[in-house]
């Protein structure tokens, strides 16, 4: 079996038009049972409380990042387009609000990226590693099925 193929069980009898040519060595029922077993294992892993926690944390993290990003960037764009008098207010000789807001976008990007990385390293990565380790020890999902 060529290791290079994507998902061994998928390539055995895939969807219409891409059935594996030749080399049918296993019976249909074995194949089907195998696929169902794998699907069951993934399904079980996906409702594992730890995974649910991981998913929630990731969703929260992304939601916070994306909403802060959209808020600041869209505000900036709308101000540039429609509030020219605000943008042209001069704060200190030639430094105006437009420039300060622009530099502010840079700073906010740095801060958000740093915070995202830090939160991931502390709250996401250890949890993901734990789930991986447990799944590996359980052997619920065999190496053969997960090889891509």
């Amino acid at each position, binding site marked *: 079996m060529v290791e290079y193929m994507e998902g061994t069980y998928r390539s055995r009898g895939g*969807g219409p038009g*891409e059935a594996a040519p030749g080399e049918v060595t296993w019976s249909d029922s074995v194949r089907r049972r195998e696929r169902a077993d794998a699907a069951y294992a*993934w*399904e079980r892993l996906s409702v594992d409380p730890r995974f649910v926690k991981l998913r929630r944390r990731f969703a929260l993290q992304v939601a916070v*990042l994306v909403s802060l990003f959209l808020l600041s960037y869209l505000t900036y764009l709308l101000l540039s387009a429609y509030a*020219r008098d605000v943008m042209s207010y001069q704060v200190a000789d030639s430094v*105006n609000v437009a420039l300060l807001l622009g530099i502010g976008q840079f700073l906010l990007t740095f801060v958000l*990226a740093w915070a995202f990385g830090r939160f991931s390293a502390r709250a996401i990565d250890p949890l993901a590693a734990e789930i991986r380790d447990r799944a590996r020890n359980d052997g619920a999902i065999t190496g053969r099925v997960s090889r891509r």
Partner: protein
Amino acid sequence: MIPTAPSTPKSLVSALEGQFGPAHAWTLALFALFVLVTLVISIRMRRTTRGAVDYFAGGRGFSSTQNGLALTGDYLSAASFLGIAGMIALQGYDGFLYSIGFLVAWLLVLPMAQLMRNTGRFTMADLPAFRMRRMRVRLACSVSTVTVCVFYLVAQMVGAGALVAVLLGLHDGGSFLGLGADQARTGAIILVGVLMIVYVMYGGMKAATWLQIIKAILLLTVTGLLTALVLSLFSFDPRALLGAAADASGHGPAFLEPGLRLGVEVPGDPVQTAFNKLDLISLGLALVLGTVALPHILIRFYTVPDGRAARTSVNRTIVMIGAFYLMTLALGFGAAALVGSERILAADASGNTAVPLLAEQVGRLAAGPVGGAVMLALVSAVALATILAVIASLTLASSSSIAHDVFGHILMWGRPRESQEVGVARFSACLVGAVAIVLAVQAQNQNVAFLVGLAFAIAAAANLPVIVLTMFWRRFNTRGVEWGVYGGLSATLVLMLFSPVVSGRIHPVTGESMSVLPAWIDIQLFPMENPALVAVPIGFVCAIVGSLLSPERDSARFTELRVRSLTGWGADQG
């Protein structure tokens, strides 16, 4: 003393405005050195490139710092280095809007990087193909990848040709070794095209990555040096720099505010004003959403060992790109203050030579004519290296897609031999490169700057819906992918065709066409230059409607994808 630009004595005429001189020789020598070093690296990398993982994903062995540098190199094209600084020099603050869009976009890349790395193998199509019937999905993704890459490639290569013509002082009738401007341009396009094919065919992803790393270090160093020199002339007081730029520009304080180029307010025409402002917002969205889905950026995440490294590399990239774009601000305003818009415009109407001119001026102020020649040569060589590196990556991205998706999974039913797939990738690199060279030579006299914007808009409208919905929508399916890609792609192309970029924009004084088509053809129906504001929603709606119209659903595969993408399970196994 604060030097200002203005009347240049005859003896100080720039090398860019005269005949071939020592600065040109130095430029060519430095560029040749860069090519030599990177070719040697390619040859070394060829020895360690054995299978498909090595060729397409650089063996997945790069560290996050290396990959961060490579991403920086991939992303900072000549449009960033020369284009944005030139725009700031000529139109002031509005050029900075591009810098901001290009940078903040990476905040959206940040959460995607890890998910991409955990679920894909070599190309963007791996992601939706993980969940769905593979062939049609792969074909659709491959079509959009190749389209984006070819448009971007042609724009960069035409840019390379124009840059060489200007750098050699050929833009207005000069000659170099008996070559006119046209021959020099054609020669430059063919030269960089052949070099890029050599890198990609020979060394694959490993060579491309090292090429990017070297280029990113060079680019950041030279930009930093130039920025420091510019600021030192203003005794490190940004306010003095801004003030001098505003004075020299002839626009006064308006030079430092938005509105000279983007979202222009047309007196007495409220409709046009409204569209101009929408255009500004559309541009802002295209920059941000397109970046997330650029194929040559996406495939970089496969070169690191795991999802964590992919995320960290994006963080490194944000720092480097942020620093770079802050420096372009100093370069752009520095060029406006020290060189002056007349000389910039005289050398090149689009402002692409602002940075080389600034380098020469600054070098001359710091160390006399020799300093000027050295700085000019340095900056020009780095600009050429920048173009070369970016087009190599684009070629790699499209040839990977052709070999892995079209050949490997469509023609060979998902079971090619590795050696075949790599062979096909080399061949298609050659093919894509040849097509790009021919197109670029044909288009060398056109103004193709809009092609970069078009590439970003297509990425945003065709690729982004597919990536986002694959990751987060259980109901998404094959027809959704197809409708999303083809719908977004054709919406962007059609809107572009009917936009003022292609036809209908006529210079008010001379009556000449400022669009791609000649003045007598007017098919302009769509009022905005940037279609993203309309095209991206169309892409998303097509993808969603297509999915809902098809009964296909595979909940089990989505569950598997979600577990894999978040935990990284299985991603460490090659």
